[in-house]
Protein backbone atom coordinates (compact mmCIF):
# COMPACT_ATOMS: atom_id res chain seq x y z
CA UNK A 1 0.00 0.00 0.00
CA UNK A 2 2.77 2.36 1.06
CA UNK A 3 4.77 1.42 -2.00
CA UNK A 4 1.83 2.33 -4.23
CA UNK A 5 1.43 5.68 -2.50
CA UNK A 6 5.15 6.39 -2.86
CA UNK A 7 5.06 5.44 -6.54
CA UNK A 8 2.08 7.71 -7.11
CA UNK A 9 3.86 10.57 -5.34
CA UNK A 10 6.97 10.00 -7.47
CA UNK A 11 4.91 10.03 -10.63
CA UNK A 12 3.13 13.24 -9.68
CA UNK A 13 6.49 14.93 -8.90
CA UNK A 14 7.79 13.80 -12.29
CA UNK A 15 4.73 15.20 -14.05
CA UNK A 16 5.07 18.50 -12.18
CA UNK A 17 8.74 18.76 -13.16
CA UNK A 18 7.84 18.05 -16.79
CA UNK A 19 5.18 20.71 -16.84
CA UNK A 20 7.51 23.20 -15.15
CA UNK A 21 10.29 22.55 -17.69
CA UNK A 22 7.83 22.93 -20.56
CA UNK A 23 6.41 26.17 -19.15
CA UNK A 24 9.91 27.55 -18.45
CA UNK A 25 11.12 26.83 -21.98
CA UNK A 26 7.96 28.24 -23.54
CA UNK A 27 8.38 31.34 -21.38
CA UNK A 28 12.01 31.75 -22.45
CA UNK A 29 11.04 31.36 -26.11
CA UNK A 30 8.17 33.80 -25.68
CA UNK A 31 10.44 36.35 -24.02
CA UNK A 32 13.07 35.90 -26.72
CA UNK A 33 10.49 36.44 -29.40
CA UNK A 34 9.07 39.47 -27.64
CA UNK A 35 12.53 40.95 -27.12
CA UNK A 36 13.42 40.33 -30.77
CA UNK A 37 10.19 41.91 -31.97
CA UNK A 38 10.56 44.95 -29.72
CA UNK A 39 14.25 45.65 -29.73
CA UNK A 40 16.07 42.95 -31.66
CA UNK A 41 18.50 42.55 -28.77
CA UNK A 42 21.47 40.31 -29.44
CA UNK A 43 22.59 39.58 -25.89
CA UNK A 44 25.58 37.71 -24.42
CA UNK A 45 24.03 34.21 -24.85
CA UNK A 46 23.45 34.94 -28.55
CA UNK A 47 26.97 36.31 -28.92
CA UNK A 48 28.44 33.29 -27.16
CA UNK A 49 26.50 30.96 -29.47
CA UNK A 50 27.66 32.81 -32.58
CA UNK A 51 31.26 32.74 -31.34
CA UNK A 52 30.92 29.03 -30.60
CA UNK A 53 29.54 28.02 -34.00
CA UNK A 54 31.61 30.55 -36.00
CA UNK A 55 34.94 28.68 -35.71
CA UNK A 56 33.25 25.39 -36.71
CA UNK A 57 31.75 27.05 -39.78
CA UNK A 58 35.06 28.71 -40.53
CA UNK A 59 36.94 25.40 -40.31
CA UNK A 60 34.46 23.57 -42.55
CA UNK A 61 34.30 26.43 -45.06
CA UNK A 62 38.08 26.69 -45.25
CA UNK A 63 38.58 22.94 -45.54
CA UNK A 64 35.87 22.47 -48.13
CA UNK A 65 36.87 25.58 -50.06
CA UNK A 66 40.44 24.27 -49.99
CA UNK A 67 39.37 20.90 -51.36
CA UNK A 68 37.18 22.48 -54.02
CA UNK A 69 39.95 24.85 -55.02
CA UNK A 70 42.46 22.03 -55.13
CA UNK A 71 40.19 19.98 -57.33
CA UNK A 72 39.36 22.80 -59.69
CA UNK A 73 42.86 24.29 -59.72
CA UNK A 74 45.03 21.21 -60.06
CA UNK A 75 42.84 18.47 -61.41
CA UNK A 76 40.28 20.08 -63.66
CA UNK A 77 41.28 23.14 -65.63
CA UNK A 78 44.53 24.35 -64.20
CA UNK A 79 45.46 27.01 -66.70
CA UNK A 80 41.97 28.03 -67.68
CA UNK A 81 41.00 28.41 -64.05
CA UNK A 82 43.97 30.61 -63.27
CA UNK A 83 43.34 32.72 -66.34
CA UNK A 84 39.66 32.87 -65.51
CA UNK A 85 40.43 34.05 -62.00
CA UNK A 86 42.73 36.72 -63.36
CA UNK A 87 40.13 37.85 -65.86
CA UNK A 88 37.40 37.78 -63.23
CA UNK A 89 39.54 39.99 -61.02
CA UNK A 90 40.06 42.32 -63.97
CA UNK A 91 36.34 42.36 -64.73
CA UNK A 92 35.61 43.18 -61.08
CA UNK A 93 38.15 45.97 -61.25
CA UNK A 94 36.79 47.34 -64.52
CA UNK A 95 33.20 47.05 -63.30
CA UNK A 96 34.11 49.02 -60.22
CA UNK A 97 35.90 51.60 -62.35
CA UNK A 98 32.99 51.74 -64.77
CA UNK A 99 30.59 52.29 -61.91
CA UNK A 100 32.79 55.06 -60.59
CA UNK A 101 33.02 56.74 -64.01
CA UNK A 102 29.27 56.52 -64.53
CA UNK A 103 28.68 57.92 -61.11
CA UNK A 104 31.24 60.67 -61.72
CA UNK A 105 29.57 61.62 -64.98
CA UNK A 106 26.11 61.69 -63.38
CA UNK A 107 27.48 63.69 -60.49
CA UNK A 108 28.93 66.21 -62.91
CA UNK A 109 25.68 66.44 -64.83
CA UNK A 110 23.65 67.03 -61.73
CA UNK A 111 26.09 69.58 -60.33
CA UNK A 112 26.78 67.72 -57.12
CA UNK A 113 29.47 68.92 -54.79
CA UNK A 114 32.93 67.39 -55.16
CA UNK A 115 33.08 67.07 -51.41
CA UNK A 116 30.76 64.11 -51.50
CA UNK A 117 33.26 62.29 -53.67
CA UNK A 118 36.06 63.20 -51.32
CA UNK A 119 34.10 61.65 -48.49
CA UNK A 120 33.84 58.47 -50.49
CA UNK A 121 37.59 58.43 -51.05
CA UNK A 122 38.22 58.21 -47.29
CA UNK A 123 36.67 54.75 -47.38
CA UNK A 124 38.93 52.20 -45.65
CA UNK A 125 37.12 48.89 -45.79
CA UNK A 126 37.78 45.92 -43.54
CA UNK A 127 37.92 42.66 -45.47
CA UNK A 128 36.00 39.75 -43.96
CA UNK A 129 35.71 36.14 -45.03
CA UNK A 130 32.27 34.58 -45.38
CA UNK A 131 32.27 31.50 -43.15
CA UNK A 132 28.57 30.58 -43.17
CA UNK A 133 25.57 31.22 -45.37
CA UNK A 134 21.90 30.60 -44.83
CA UNK A 135 20.22 31.93 -47.94
CA UNK A 136 17.04 30.02 -47.13
CA UNK A 137 13.74 31.45 -48.27
CA UNK A 138 13.07 33.16 -44.93
CA UNK A 139 16.51 34.21 -43.85
CA UNK A 140 19.10 35.32 -46.44
CA UNK A 141 21.91 35.95 -43.97
CA UNK A 142 25.66 35.27 -43.92
CA UNK A 143 28.20 34.96 -41.12
CA UNK A 144 31.63 36.63 -41.48
CA UNK A 145 34.80 36.21 -39.44
CA UNK A 146 34.97 39.78 -38.13
CA UNK A 147 33.34 40.95 -34.94
CA UNK A 148 33.46 43.49 -32.14
CA UNK A 149 37.15 42.75 -31.72
CA UNK A 150 37.71 44.27 -35.17
CA UNK A 151 35.51 47.29 -34.37
CA UNK A 152 32.55 45.95 -36.29
CA UNK A 153 29.27 47.34 -35.05
CA UNK A 154 25.66 46.60 -35.83
CA UNK A 155 24.42 48.77 -38.68
CA UNK A 156 27.66 48.89 -40.67
CA UNK A 157 27.37 48.21 -44.36
CA UNK A 158 28.94 45.35 -46.27
CA UNK A 159 30.15 45.76 -49.85
CA UNK A 160 31.76 43.70 -52.58
CA UNK A 161 33.42 44.87 -55.82
CA UNK A 162 30.04 44.69 -57.55
CA UNK A 163 28.18 46.83 -55.01
CA UNK A 164 26.10 46.52 -51.86
CA UNK A 165 26.04 43.16 -50.07
CA UNK A 166 23.98 44.08 -47.01
CA UNK A 167 24.13 45.37 -43.48
CA UNK A 168 25.58 44.01 -40.24
CA UNK A 169 22.65 43.02 -38.04
CA UNK A 170 24.25 41.14 -35.13
CA UNK A 171 27.81 41.08 -33.83
CA UNK A 172 29.66 38.78 -31.44
CA UNK A 173 33.27 39.07 -30.29
CA UNK A 174 34.80 37.41 -33.37
CA UNK A 175 31.92 36.92 -35.80
CA UNK A 176 29.09 38.96 -37.26
CA UNK A 177 25.85 38.19 -39.01
CA UNK A 178 24.96 40.18 -42.13
CA UNK A 179 21.47 40.60 -43.53
CA UNK A 180 21.81 40.30 -47.31
CA UNK A 181 20.40 43.10 -49.43
CA UNK A 182 18.18 40.62 -51.29
CA UNK A 183 16.44 39.44 -48.11
CA UNK A 184 12.68 40.09 -48.14
CA UNK A 185 13.08 42.15 -44.96
CA UNK A 186 15.71 44.42 -46.53
CA UNK A 187 14.79 47.83 -47.98
CA UNK A 188 17.27 50.36 -49.41
CA UNK A 189 16.67 53.89 -50.64
CA UNK A 190 17.74 53.69 -54.27
CA UNK A 191 17.65 55.72 -57.47
CA UNK A 192 17.97 55.24 -61.20
CA UNK A 193 21.47 56.44 -61.98
CA UNK A 194 20.71 58.21 -65.28
CA UNK A 195 17.94 60.54 -64.07
CA UNK A 196 17.93 60.31 -60.24
CA UNK A 197 14.42 58.85 -60.09
CA UNK A 198 14.05 57.55 -56.56
CA UNK A 199 12.39 54.47 -55.13
CA UNK A 200 12.70 51.80 -52.48
CA UNK A 201 14.68 48.71 -53.43
CA UNK A 202 13.23 45.70 -51.66
CA UNK A 203 14.85 42.29 -51.46
CA UNK A 204 13.07 39.52 -53.36
CA UNK A 205 15.20 36.51 -52.42
CA UNK A 206 16.39 34.46 -55.35
CA UNK A 207 14.75 36.90 -57.78
CA UNK A 208 17.07 39.70 -56.70
CA UNK A 209 15.38 43.04 -56.03
CA UNK A 210 12.15 44.86 -56.71
CA UNK A 211 12.20 48.64 -57.10
CA UNK A 212 9.05 50.06 -55.56
CA UNK A 213 7.28 53.43 -55.58
CA UNK A 214 8.49 54.58 -59.00
CA UNK A 215 5.74 56.51 -60.75
CA UNK A 216 4.43 55.33 -64.11
CA UNK A 217 5.43 58.65 -65.61
CA UNK A 218 9.10 58.19 -64.66
CA UNK A 219 11.51 57.56 -67.50
CA UNK A 220 13.00 54.15 -66.75
CA UNK A 221 14.08 51.41 -69.13
CA UNK A 222 15.36 47.86 -68.98
CA UNK A 223 19.13 48.02 -68.54
CA UNK A 224 19.15 51.22 -66.46
CA UNK A 225 21.54 51.12 -63.52
CA UNK A 226 20.27 51.37 -59.96
CA UNK A 227 22.46 52.88 -57.24
CA UNK A 228 21.99 53.81 -53.59
CA UNK A 229 20.27 57.17 -53.06
CA UNK A 230 22.13 58.08 -49.88
CA UNK A 231 18.99 58.97 -47.94
CA UNK A 232 18.91 58.00 -44.28
CA UNK A 233 22.67 58.04 -43.80
CA UNK A 234 23.18 54.29 -43.80
CA UNK A 235 24.40 53.82 -47.37
CA UNK A 236 26.42 56.56 -49.09
CA UNK A 237 24.98 57.70 -52.43
CA UNK A 238 26.09 56.13 -55.67
CA UNK A 239 26.99 52.57 -54.70
CA UNK A 240 25.99 50.08 -57.38
CA UNK A 241 23.03 47.81 -56.64
CA UNK A 242 21.99 46.30 -59.95
CA UNK A 243 20.29 46.95 -63.25
CA UNK A 244 16.67 46.84 -64.31
CA UNK A 245 15.75 43.49 -65.82
CA UNK A 246 11.97 43.83 -66.24
CA UNK A 247 9.36 46.58 -66.13
CA UNK A 248 5.63 46.11 -65.92
CA UNK A 249 3.06 48.90 -66.04
CA UNK A 250 -0.30 47.63 -64.89
CA UNK A 251 -3.47 49.48 -65.71
CA UNK A 252 -4.30 50.01 -62.06
CA UNK A 253 -2.14 51.88 -59.59
CA UNK A 254 0.27 54.77 -59.75
CA UNK A 255 3.52 52.85 -59.73
CA UNK A 256 5.48 50.61 -62.05
CA UNK A 257 6.58 47.11 -61.13
CA UNK A 258 10.32 47.00 -61.66
CA UNK A 259 12.54 43.96 -61.20
CA UNK A 260 16.23 44.58 -60.63
CA UNK A 261 19.00 42.08 -61.24
CA UNK A 262 21.75 42.43 -58.59
CA UNK A 263 25.32 43.08 -59.70
CA UNK A 264 26.46 40.71 -56.99
CA UNK A 265 26.05 36.97 -57.11
CA UNK A 266 24.99 36.39 -53.51
CA UNK A 267 25.61 32.66 -53.88
CA UNK A 268 29.28 33.09 -54.66
CA UNK A 269 30.29 35.52 -51.96
CA UNK A 270 33.60 34.57 -50.42
CA UNK A 271 34.80 37.88 -49.07
CA UNK A 272 33.02 41.10 -48.20
CA UNK A 273 34.27 44.57 -47.33
CA UNK A 274 32.86 46.15 -44.21
CA UNK A 275 32.65 49.92 -44.37
CA UNK A 276 33.62 51.50 -41.04
CA UNK A 277 33.00 55.10 -42.12
CA UNK A 278 30.18 57.27 -40.83
CA UNK A 279 29.89 54.98 -37.83
CA UNK A 280 28.33 57.56 -35.61
CA UNK A 281 25.79 58.51 -38.24
CA UNK A 282 24.92 54.86 -38.66
CA UNK A 283 24.48 54.38 -34.94
CA UNK A 284 22.49 57.55 -34.53
CA UNK A 285 20.21 56.69 -37.41
CA UNK A 286 19.54 53.28 -35.85
CA UNK A 287 19.24 54.66 -32.29
CA UNK A 288 22.03 52.39 -31.10
CA UNK A 289 24.57 53.28 -28.47
CA UNK A 290 28.12 51.94 -28.77
CA UNK A 291 28.86 49.62 -25.86
CA UNK A 292 32.61 49.36 -25.96
Amino acid sequence: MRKNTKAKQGRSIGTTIRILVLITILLVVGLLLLAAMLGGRFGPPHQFTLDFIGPLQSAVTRTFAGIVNLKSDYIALLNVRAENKQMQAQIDKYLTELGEYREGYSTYRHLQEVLALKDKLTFKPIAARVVGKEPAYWYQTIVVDRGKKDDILEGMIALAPGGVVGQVMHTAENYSKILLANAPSSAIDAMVQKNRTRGILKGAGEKGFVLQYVLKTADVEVGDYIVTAGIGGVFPAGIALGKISRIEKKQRGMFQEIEVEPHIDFQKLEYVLLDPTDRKAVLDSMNLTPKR
Partner: protein
Amino acid sequence: MLVFLFWALGIVLIVAQTTLLEYLPLWLGRPDLVFVLVAFIAYRFAWIPGIVLVFVLSWVLDVIAGIYLGLYPLVCLLVFTALKTLTNKSPVKESTYQIPLVGLSYFLMQIFFYFVYSLFLPDMLPEWSWPGTLQRTILVVLAAVPLFILFNRLYEYILTRRLRSKPPRRRSQRAI
Protein backbone atom coordinates in the same frame (compact mmCIF):
# COMPACT_ATOMS: atom_id res chain seq x y z
CA MET B 1 24.66 10.49 -23.27
CA LEU B 2 21.87 10.07 -25.83
CA VAL B 3 20.84 13.71 -25.55
CA PHE B 4 24.43 14.91 -25.71
CA LEU B 5 25.23 12.84 -28.80
CA PHE B 6 22.13 14.06 -30.62
CA TRP B 7 22.99 17.62 -29.60
CA ALA B 8 26.46 17.15 -31.14
CA LEU B 9 24.84 15.63 -34.24
CA GLY B 10 22.52 18.64 -34.43
CA ILE B 11 25.48 21.02 -34.28
CA VAL B 12 27.16 19.09 -37.11
CA LEU B 13 23.95 19.36 -39.15
CA ILE B 14 23.70 23.11 -38.50
CA VAL B 15 27.30 23.64 -39.59
CA ALA B 16 26.75 21.47 -42.68
CA GLN B 17 23.53 23.31 -43.53
CA THR B 18 25.20 26.71 -43.34
CA THR B 19 28.43 25.78 -45.12
CA LEU B 20 28.45 22.64 -47.29
CA LEU B 21 24.92 22.90 -48.67
CA GLU B 22 25.87 26.18 -50.30
CA TYR B 23 27.68 24.19 -52.95
CA LEU B 24 24.37 22.78 -54.19
CA PRO B 25 22.98 24.47 -57.31
CA LEU B 26 20.67 27.41 -56.61
CA TRP B 27 17.69 26.03 -58.55
CA LEU B 28 17.65 22.92 -56.37
CA GLY B 29 17.22 24.79 -53.09
CA ARG B 30 18.45 23.61 -49.71
CA PRO B 31 16.80 21.14 -47.36
CA ASP B 32 16.29 22.15 -43.72
CA LEU B 33 18.27 19.38 -42.03
CA VAL B 34 17.61 20.68 -38.52
CA PHE B 35 13.88 20.43 -39.12
CA VAL B 36 14.28 16.74 -40.03
CA LEU B 37 16.14 16.19 -36.77
CA VAL B 38 13.40 17.99 -34.85
CA ALA B 39 10.84 15.60 -36.35
CA PHE B 40 13.00 12.58 -35.45
CA ILE B 41 13.35 13.84 -31.88
CA ALA B 42 9.57 14.15 -31.68
CA TYR B 43 9.18 10.52 -32.78
CA ARG B 44 11.85 8.95 -30.61
CA PHE B 45 12.60 11.07 -27.56
CA ALA B 46 10.60 11.57 -24.37
CA TRP B 47 8.99 14.94 -23.69
CA ILE B 48 11.62 16.65 -21.52
CA PRO B 49 14.84 15.62 -23.29
CA GLY B 50 13.03 16.22 -26.57
CA ILE B 51 11.96 19.75 -25.68
CA VAL B 52 15.42 20.60 -24.35
CA LEU B 53 17.13 19.27 -27.50
CA VAL B 54 14.72 20.96 -29.89
CA PHE B 55 14.99 24.26 -28.05
CA VAL B 56 18.80 24.25 -27.91
CA LEU B 57 19.28 23.28 -31.57
CA SER B 58 16.66 25.65 -32.94
CA TRP B 59 18.11 28.42 -30.76
CA VAL B 60 21.58 27.86 -32.28
CA LEU B 61 20.25 27.95 -35.85
CA ASP B 62 18.21 31.03 -34.97
CA VAL B 63 21.32 32.84 -33.71
CA ILE B 64 23.35 31.82 -36.76
CA ALA B 65 20.78 32.68 -39.40
CA GLY B 66 17.59 34.13 -37.94
CA ILE B 67 16.47 37.68 -38.54
CA TYR B 68 13.71 37.87 -35.92
CA LEU B 69 15.20 36.02 -32.96
CA GLY B 70 12.91 33.53 -31.29
CA LEU B 71 10.64 32.78 -34.23
CA TYR B 72 12.41 29.62 -35.38
CA PRO B 73 12.61 28.05 -31.86
CA LEU B 74 8.93 28.80 -31.38
CA VAL B 75 7.99 27.15 -34.67
CA CYS B 76 10.23 24.13 -33.95
CA LEU B 77 8.71 23.68 -30.49
CA LEU B 78 5.22 23.88 -31.96
CA VAL B 79 6.12 21.27 -34.58
CA PHE B 80 7.68 19.07 -31.89
CA THR B 81 4.59 19.33 -29.67
CA ALA B 82 2.24 18.67 -32.58
CA LEU B 83 4.16 15.63 -33.83
CA LYS B 84 4.65 14.27 -30.31
CA THR B 85 0.97 14.60 -29.47
CA LEU B 86 -0.09 13.13 -32.80
CA THR B 87 2.21 10.12 -32.64
CA ASN B 88 1.90 9.34 -28.94
CA LYS B 89 0.26 5.91 -28.58
CA SER B 90 -0.99 6.09 -32.12
CA PRO B 91 -0.40 3.96 -35.24
CA VAL B 92 0.79 7.14 -36.93
CA LYS B 93 4.05 6.55 -35.06
CA GLU B 94 4.85 3.65 -37.41
CA SER B 95 7.75 4.23 -39.77
CA THR B 96 5.43 4.19 -42.81
CA TYR B 97 3.88 7.47 -41.73
CA GLN B 98 6.98 9.14 -40.35
CA ILE B 99 8.46 10.59 -43.54
CA PRO B 100 5.15 11.83 -45.02
CA LEU B 101 4.41 13.46 -41.67
CA VAL B 102 7.74 15.29 -41.83
CA GLY B 103 6.75 16.66 -45.24
CA LEU B 104 3.28 17.64 -44.07
CA SER B 105 4.57 19.39 -40.95
CA TYR B 106 7.23 21.25 -42.97
CA PHE B 107 4.59 22.36 -45.44
CA LEU B 108 2.37 23.60 -42.60
CA MET B 109 5.34 25.28 -40.94
CA GLN B 110 5.97 27.36 -44.06
CA ILE B 111 2.34 28.44 -44.07
CA PHE B 112 2.60 29.28 -40.36
CA PHE B 113 5.74 31.35 -41.01
CA TYR B 114 3.92 33.26 -43.72
CA PHE B 115 0.92 33.76 -41.46
CA VAL B 116 3.10 35.17 -38.65
CA TYR B 117 4.87 37.50 -41.07
CA SER B 118 1.58 38.72 -42.53
CA LEU B 119 0.28 39.46 -39.01
CA PHE B 120 3.30 41.08 -37.41
CA LEU B 121 5.64 42.08 -40.25
CA PRO B 122 3.47 42.75 -43.29
CA ASP B 123 6.02 45.17 -44.79
CA MET B 124 8.61 42.44 -44.90
CA LEU B 125 6.37 39.76 -46.30
CA PRO B 126 8.17 37.79 -48.99
CA GLU B 127 6.35 36.79 -52.12
CA TRP B 128 4.39 33.55 -51.69
CA SER B 129 5.01 30.85 -54.26
CA TRP B 130 3.23 27.48 -54.32
CA PRO B 131 5.81 25.79 -56.58
CA GLY B 132 8.61 27.05 -54.33
CA THR B 133 6.84 25.85 -51.19
CA LEU B 134 6.19 22.42 -52.69
CA GLN B 135 9.76 22.16 -53.96
CA ARG B 136 11.16 22.91 -50.51
CA THR B 137 8.79 20.37 -48.96
CA ILE B 138 9.80 17.64 -51.43
CA LEU B 139 13.44 18.42 -50.75
CA VAL B 140 12.93 18.00 -47.01
CA VAL B 141 11.11 14.69 -47.57
CA LEU B 142 13.93 13.42 -49.81
CA ALA B 143 16.55 14.49 -47.28
CA ALA B 144 14.55 12.88 -44.47
CA VAL B 145 14.90 9.35 -45.91
CA PRO B 146 18.68 8.91 -45.52
CA LEU B 147 18.77 11.11 -42.44
CA PHE B 148 16.14 9.02 -40.64
CA ILE B 149 18.10 5.86 -41.45
CA LEU B 150 21.21 7.49 -39.99
CA PHE B 151 19.43 8.83 -36.91
CA ASN B 152 17.74 5.48 -36.26
CA ARG B 153 21.02 3.59 -36.53
CA LEU B 154 22.71 5.99 -34.16
CA TYR B 155 19.79 5.93 -31.72
CA GLU B 156 19.64 2.14 -31.63
CA TYR B 157 23.42 1.81 -31.40
CA ILE B 158 23.52 4.08 -28.35
CA LEU B 159 20.60 2.27 -26.71
CA THR B 160 22.21 -1.14 -27.30
CA ARG B 161 25.50 0.04 -25.83
CA ARG B 162 23.70 1.49 -22.87
CA LEU B 163 21.85 -1.79 -22.23
CA ARG B 164 25.07 -3.80 -22.51
CA SER B 165 26.92 -1.57 -20.12
CA LYS B 166 24.19 -1.87 -17.44
CA PRO B 167 24.76 -4.77 -15.01
CA PRO B 168 21.80 -7.18 -14.76
CA ARG B 169 19.56 -6.59 -11.76
CA ARG B 170 19.81 -9.08 -8.93
CA ARG B 171 16.71 -10.50 -7.42
CA SER B 172 16.15 -9.40 -3.86
CA GLN B 173 16.35 -11.85 -0.98
CA ARG B 174 12.63 -11.43 -0.21
CA ALA B 175 11.59 -12.32 -3.73
CA ILE B 176 13.52 -15.53 -3.49
